């Protein structure tokens, strides 16, 4: 019985077809209007910076906070971060606020231009607010990193290393 259980455990990921790398499996979902993958749709090859006025900030219950950004040439929809992270950054955005947004540009399936924000600055002298790291990794996911424990640390092998409960000593980053 034990042998069958152990065998099924080791084979289960193979049978489930989980052969994709982990970054492709993360909890991305497709935003219905734009068809953009969130939060993983950031493309470092399309990073640009836009200055303009912010309008219609929208804070959905799930998914990213978004607002319209009207520049001299185009109008974009900016996708920022989950509501809780936006609140923690204490972003004070109202209609007509002058801002600078750096992020990955994308054309949505609805024909609108989108920016997946990496950094936002309220002009003229606001502090730059970061939503993503240099490589586009969402900083709100970093806050949750390691929640399953498991990094190697203090403690004896007699009790299992550190505060972890097993594994190879590495938490999700």
């Amino acid at each position: 019985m034990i042998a069958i259980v152990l065998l099924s455990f080791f084979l289960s990921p193979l049978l489930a077809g989980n052969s994709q790398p982990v970054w492709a499996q993360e909890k991305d979902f497709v935003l219905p209007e734009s068809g953009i993958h969130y939060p993983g749709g950031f493309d470092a090859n399309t990073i640009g910076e836009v200055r303009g006025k912010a309008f219609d900030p929208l804070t959905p219950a799930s998914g990213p906070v978004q607002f319209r950004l009207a520049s001299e040439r185009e109008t974009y929809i900016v996708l920022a971060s989950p509501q809780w992270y936006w609140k923690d950054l204490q972003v004070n955005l109202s209609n007509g606020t002058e801002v600078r947004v750096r992020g990955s540009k994308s054309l949505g399936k609805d024909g609108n231009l989108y920016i997946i924000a990496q950094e936002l600055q309220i002009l003229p002298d606001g502090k730059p607010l970061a939503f993503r790291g240099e490589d586009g990794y969402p900083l709100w996911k970093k806050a949750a990193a390691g929640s399953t424990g498991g990094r190697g640390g203090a403690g004896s092998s007699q009790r299992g290393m550190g505060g972890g409960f097993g594994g190879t000593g590495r938490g999700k980053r």
Partner: protein
Amino acid sequence: MAFFADRAVKHFLGLFFCLLTLFCSSRVSAEWEAGAKLGFDSNVDRAIGNEQSDAYLSASLSFLRGASGESRIDWTMAATLEGSAFFRLTDLSYGALTLAPGITLIPHRLWTINLSAFIQAKGVADSDQSALAYGGKVSMRQEIEKDFYTGQYYIYRDSRAEEDIYSYVENALGIYVGKNWSRAFYTEIGYEYSYGESFRTLDIETPRGAGKGKQHRYSQTFGKEVIKEKVNRHSIGISAGIDWTKELFSTVAYAYTGVDGDSGFSSSHSGFISLGYRF
């Protein structure tokens, strides 16, 4: 193994696989990790003098469901199956199954709290040491500045072994600081204090303090007299981890541990190097 014949363990295994199937089908922000670890311990028998050192090779498979970060509250799960083979004291080789569900709270973007419970079934070749353990862990982590963080944790563990001398209840407190030098490389240094019961081995037949009603028995695995007593344990550890690729990663860790009890002081140097694969 007699231990695994126990009905409670069978129920635990059944529950484990039912939950695992559920989590796998949900396609949440979860991943599998397979890993191999080569470790050593300079005092594997917890001896007070005349320690025995040993090395081990272990393999593990983990299912990890971390918090997604999309909300301030999320649930987590770590399920690990591992097996370790000791090179010299082969009777210490074991297989273990651990299930640790939890909740992550993010009160602030720089402060994360995780509460988790765990249950572990461990079958040891020396069946006297096979045990069913349960407990809980409360951990916090704060980002002090960019890529520099600190954390604290408390662990309660109640381990019930086949032979009571190997059973223990332990309370552990730990702190650590860490630095992410890049997205692919980190280092940590930590300290852990714990107070609780522990078995210890002695060469002499009548241990000091035996008159205080301590349990003792002879262990064929260690070739020594084993006692159980309350101990204070202090550990200092350092670790480093690197992501070779998005899937492949390694960790190296070292810890110095000092254990003090009525029977005397003992210490150990332990560590491991591991190679893991996420999929």
